[in-house]
């Protein structure tokens, strides 16, 4: 019993487990020539494959019709080749944007990526004629700001990269493409500023991404779980955001951003726990206001994890802590409740989570109705029916609201989970249980690393300069230095030495 327990404990908070590494993805062993026949065989039973022939030139063009744009097709294939002679065609094909495909794999991959394969005189060329038919750039739904840029990333990576390039006009902005996903062949593009981002960290991240083994990735938030150091932790360790301004400022601060094919969120690293509590908004306000917002959010953080647990602890064990003025009201509202406070709190917290989840699954308009029905009707009725005490409703609602001031949705979900743990502990050991729970969380946090950097920077290791940009939002004259967590050589923000 004890041993099993020990083993379980060992697994918990265990040493960072790096993704199983086996080197580069396995290369295809046989490499047939990229002949037309081979390619057509490869795309057998694909109704969307198009085969166009320029008989006069002896040229064959193969592409996937749903991936390419008509305009591009006309511009790069039909217009140049329909009137060209064979010699002219050869000259055209030797120049960009046309490129020769060396082997069948590259050719197949090219076609899959929306290129046209041109078979001409025993050689195969590829030309990019794809079109992006995604949603256009619009405001991010999950991270809204009141003032500041309103654009958000979309599912198309090229569009996202172009948005970023427009924000940081520097040749130091490097983009490294890394293929991930054995079947889906999604691309991950790492973006960083050379000379500012720490090269070791970049190398470490590249290694780690290369070693990922998975069939496909759908989203950045999914991908980062494959490359973080503590896969069993409840806390997200890479900041994911849909806001280009946030990503740009992270990159300028020396962090590395990662774009994932087909995902509107972008991950940034190295991240500290406290990065999840800052919003780009803070920098668009006056610094005193930005600071107040940060402090408010930290209060929200405390409230969301502790408030209900504290209620449980006080009403179950520490009645003497209740001030005289509140005592009788609280007792009265508690006296009709048939459950002990722990069960009462878990029930209400559970209900709130149900409501939130129901609201998230339903279309916006019905979601709102759910909110009203749940919030007002159930809350009111629960108190009147003597199901819960009204002070608990206040506690639960406050902690639910407080959880939404945390800008990162993923972080706020993690905190809600921790809240349940604390409530249970508070129901068992009162304030001591609550404090022990906080201690457990802290011990866990202290063990988390992110690309080898401490998750708790700037608190531990303590760094005063960073505190100015974490718990408060210092005035810009005070924010001269880049955050210490990125371990950059160029510490001063305005400097960019090689």
């Amino acid at each position: 019993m004890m041993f099993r327990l020990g083993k379980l404990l060992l697994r918990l908070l265990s040493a960072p487990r790096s993704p199983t590494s086996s080197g580069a993805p396995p290369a295809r062993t046989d490499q047939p020539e990229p002949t037309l026949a081979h390619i057509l065989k490869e795309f057998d039973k694909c109704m969307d494959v198009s085969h166009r022939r320029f008989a006069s030139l002896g040229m064959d063009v193969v592409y996937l019709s749903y991936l390419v744009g008509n305009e591009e097709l006309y511009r790069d294939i039909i217009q140049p080749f329909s009137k060209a002679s064979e010699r002219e065609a050869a000259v055209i094909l030797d120049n960009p944007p046309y490129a020769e495909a060396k082997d069948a794999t590259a050719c197949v991959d090219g076609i899959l990526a929306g290129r046209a394969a041109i078979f001409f005189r025993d050689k195969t060329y590829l030309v990019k004629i794809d079109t992006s038919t995604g949603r256009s750039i619009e405001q991010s739904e999950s991270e809204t700001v009141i003032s500041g840029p309103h654009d958000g990333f979309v599912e198309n990576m090229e569009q996202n990269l172009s948005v970023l390039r427009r924000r940081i006009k520097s040749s130091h902005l490097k983009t490294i493409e890394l293929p991930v996903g054995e079947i889906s062949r999604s691309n991950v593009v790492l973006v960083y500023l050379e000379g500012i981002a720490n090269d070791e960290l970049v190398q470490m991240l590249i290694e780690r991404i290369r070693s990922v083994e998975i069939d496909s990735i759908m989203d950045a938030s999914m991908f980062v779980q494959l490359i973080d150091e503590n896969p069993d932790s409840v806390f997200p360790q890479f900041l994911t955001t849909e806001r280009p301004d946030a990503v740009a400022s992270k990159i300028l601060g020396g962090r590395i951003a990662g774009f994932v094919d087909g995902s509107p969120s972008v991950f940034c690293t190295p991240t500290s726990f406290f990065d999840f509590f800052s919003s780009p908004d803070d920098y668009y306000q006056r610094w005193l206001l930005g600071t107040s917002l940060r402090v408010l959010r930290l209060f929200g953080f405390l409230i969301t994890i502790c408030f209900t647990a504290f209620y449980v602890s006080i009403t179950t064990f520490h009645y003497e802590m209740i001030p005289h003025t509140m005592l009788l009201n609280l007792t009265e509202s508690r006296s009709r409740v048939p459950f002990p406070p722990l069960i009462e709190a878990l029930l209400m917290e559970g209900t709130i989570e149900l409501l939130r989840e129901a609201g998230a699954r339903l279309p916006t308009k019905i979601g709102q109705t759910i909110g009203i029905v749940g919030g007002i009707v159930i809350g009111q009725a629960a108190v009147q029916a003597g199901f819960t005490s009204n002070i608990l409703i206040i506690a639960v609602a406050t902690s639910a609201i407080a959880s939404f001031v945390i800008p990162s949705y993923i972080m706020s979900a993690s905190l809600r989970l921790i809240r349940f743990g604390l409530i249970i502990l508070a129901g068992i050991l009162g304030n001591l249980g609550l404090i022990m729970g906080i201690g457990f969380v802290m011990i866990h946090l202290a063990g988390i690393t992110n690309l080898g950097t401490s998750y708790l920077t700037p608190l531990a290791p303590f760094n005063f300069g960073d505190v100015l940009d974490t718990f408060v939002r210092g005035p810009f004259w005070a924010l001269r230095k880049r955050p210490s967590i990125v371990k950059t050589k160029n510490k001063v923000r305005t400097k960019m030495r090689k």
Partner: protein
Amino acid sequence: MKEKLNRFHIGIFIYMIELDVTVFSLPRLVAENFGTNGWLGLLALSLVAFANIGLIHFVYRLGKGRSIFQIIETALPKWCAYPLYVLLAGFWLSVGAFIGKDFILIFQMLAFQSTDSMLIFFMYCLMAYFLLIKDLYSIMKAVTLFFILTTALNGLFPFFFQEWKLIRLTTSFFQDAQPGGHSLYGMAEMYTVFVGYELCMLMFPYVNEKSKLFQGVYFGQLFTVFLQQLFVWVSFGFFSFPELKVLSYPLIHTLEYVEFPFINRMENLIFPFFLFSNLLSTVFFSFASMLCLRRIFPQARPKLIEFFLILGVFLLGYIPKILRQSELLVRHSYFIEIGIAIVLPLLLLLFIKVGQWRQKEVKV
């Protein structure tokens, strides 16, 4: 990226390890053993602690950054050194266990009187285990967090100004101590509040030149002394002197006075925060004992030694069952620890000399 500890870490490490169960009764101990204005005596006693740290500093310099195990093994054969390690490991482990159990018994005076103390102690050990299995740098990160939490509590001091009067400190010095107060035993009892700094001896391999280990140690000790003085001053002006001698835990008592409009009886919330400082004392004593065992079993599976150590802490927790017994155990093991703090550095100096002498002999 292997991080090394810096001065700041060492400083708060010293502070957190010295702040343990003894601090709750500190003002009473001062009143009992020194009498009126005993804070001055405590200050004088802290000079002894500084001198002892100076001694350890000397060992560090002569040893040129070698760990104490390396120093011991230059002079002693392994069959001679290992029993010493086992002895030290066992002793340190029991110190850690007794501190933890004592804290829980004190806590049970306030709340959870009828819960099985071993159940709470089990949770305590669980926390200790999770800390202990981490590397030292991660432990230090947790220490930093706990330090921030516990030190923030000192912000409550202004609450006592209203009821604090200088006149209660009286103008006489060292009068009216408890019978048997101004004795060696009494001084040793007082000195237990400083126990803990000697563990900096084990930090030698974890620092480099840049860390300035001893700057951190001196600073940590200074900070501890400062806060202890603050506690004693507040208590001496907040309670009357004869009252101080009858209050079992004056520090907890002062906390009762703090009242907010939305919350009363803050001691119920604040006292559990001291869990962290006691937990860290337990963890570092266990860590010390782990280092000893690691030296004997360098090949042991990771986390195995830690598991058995914490199991040991838990089982040792069964020994003290009542508060009186547990206080006595803590005090007496601290007496031994004071002895270790003085004797071990002296022995190490001897070993260094022996080692040098041997080396010369080999060369000749």
